[in-house]
């Protein structure tokens, strides 16, 4: 099967479930069940060079597309859709197998991240972003597409090296793609936000927790 082959022992690629799951590298996480054998049908790949090259090419082109996307406007939508498709379709590398995390824990993690953005807004209401009615949908789309790319695809890819490089690496890349549009002044906030979203990905075991938080943060910037 695709992405199945010989390679370095212990290196594997597994398709991520839509339910909150964690990789085996993250098995010390709260709520994670003890190790279980790979489920039937779970996709596993062991380092096939062609597959690796394809995924690296996808990661680079997705990153460049986000970096070079035009400023606010309908022209950014095809980029977001493409990045979202790439992030959703790409097999996610995991070293071991996935484990389920309770939904209550997912809620706690999402609430903590959302609370940070909500708290900042209460502390000092930022000026609203001028948004057309259809722009609200674009804000949600941007959050979903970016999270599926950074916290599913790239995080999963970087997680081969461990959770810390995955959280930090995805946060740095997330902050970097926003530099052309917002300038270096935005770097500290986006980097810290990226770390927070990466922590959510690690703690909840799924990209859906940071995606929900990211969408909420974008919507909180409206009047």
């Amino acid at each position, binding site marked *: 099967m695709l992405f199945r082959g010989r390679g370095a022992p212990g290196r594997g690629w597994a398709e991520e479930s839509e339910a909150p799951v964690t990789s085996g590298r993250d098995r010390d996480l709260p709520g994670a069940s003890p190790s279980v054998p790979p489920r039937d049908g779970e996709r596993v790949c062991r380092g096939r060079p062609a597959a690796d090259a394809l995924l690296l090419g996808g990661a680079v082109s997705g990153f460049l597309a986000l970096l070079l996307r035009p400023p606010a406007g309908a022209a950014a939508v095809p980029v977001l859709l493409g990045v979202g498709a790439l992030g959703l379709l790409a097999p996610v590398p995991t070293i071991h197998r996935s484990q389920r995390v309770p939904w209550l824990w997912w809620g706690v993690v999402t609430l903590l991240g959302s609370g940070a953005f909500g708290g900042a807004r209460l502390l000092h209401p930022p000026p609203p972003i001028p948004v057309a009615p259809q722009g609200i949908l674009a804000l949600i789309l941007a959050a979903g597409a970016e999270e599926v790319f950074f916290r599913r695809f790239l995080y999963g890819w970087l997680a081969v090296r461990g959770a810390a490089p995955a959280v930090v690496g995805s946060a740095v890349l997330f902050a970097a793609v926003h530099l052309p549009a917002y*300038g270096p002044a935005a770097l500290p906030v*986006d980097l810290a936000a990226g770390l927070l979203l990466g922590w959510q990905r690690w703690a909840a075991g799924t990209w859906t927790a940071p995606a929900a938080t990211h969408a909420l943060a974008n919507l909180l910037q409206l009047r």
Partner: protein
Amino acid sequence: MKAGSGRAGAALALGAACVLAYAAAVWISWPRALPRLLYDGYTPPPPYRWVKPPLSLLVHTTPPQPGNGTVPLTRSGSAPASVVTGDDQAAVVFPPGAIEPRAGDSAVEVRITPLDPGSLAPPPRGLRFDGNAYRIDAEYLPDRSPAVLRAPVSVVLRYPGEATTLLRLEGSRWQEVQTTRVPAGFQVFASTRQLGVYVAAGPPGSGGHLTLWLYRAVTVLLWAAAVLLAVLLVADYVRGGRRRRRA
């Protein structure tokens, strides 16, 4: 169970550290940058509202809206606040303590009024106006005397085209002020201790052909990667199904 609780506690502690790091980043950045919860969101803005639309804009445009707000005063100065026009085209962001407190006054009223920049003074050489001018007034209440700033405030204007700078009206001339551009929101902002009349401006014409070409090339590559991945996944699924049937 105890081990599970310990792991949950450690994960929450890490999360709290991330929240604190985010709060620190906001604390450091917001006085210097246009405050945003997250510097993200590429959204189509609504049509620009002109006081006097350019001749090239033949369609009728909706008139711009003014802004009005009250900033409460405390003993240590003004509370943090943002005053925005009804159409979000102009805003003034007051960080904590930006306005000098005054005995007997409890608040400051801020008004933002859209104006036609061409009727005030011609643009500096090599620049053209990009959008409306906005007059920003702030008065103590109930005294009605002009408010005194003791820390910089951020003046934020949305532009419809390719603005690169903010201009401030000084007497009968426009003066450039140090400006930060936020292309993602079609906004320019400046940190200033002076209120008054501001307008966004930029050079005539626009460039960026190489960026546009690069953007198109990368978008094509991105879609090619996504389609190739989808085709491979479908082919892989079909092959797997055949293998299972044979088995």
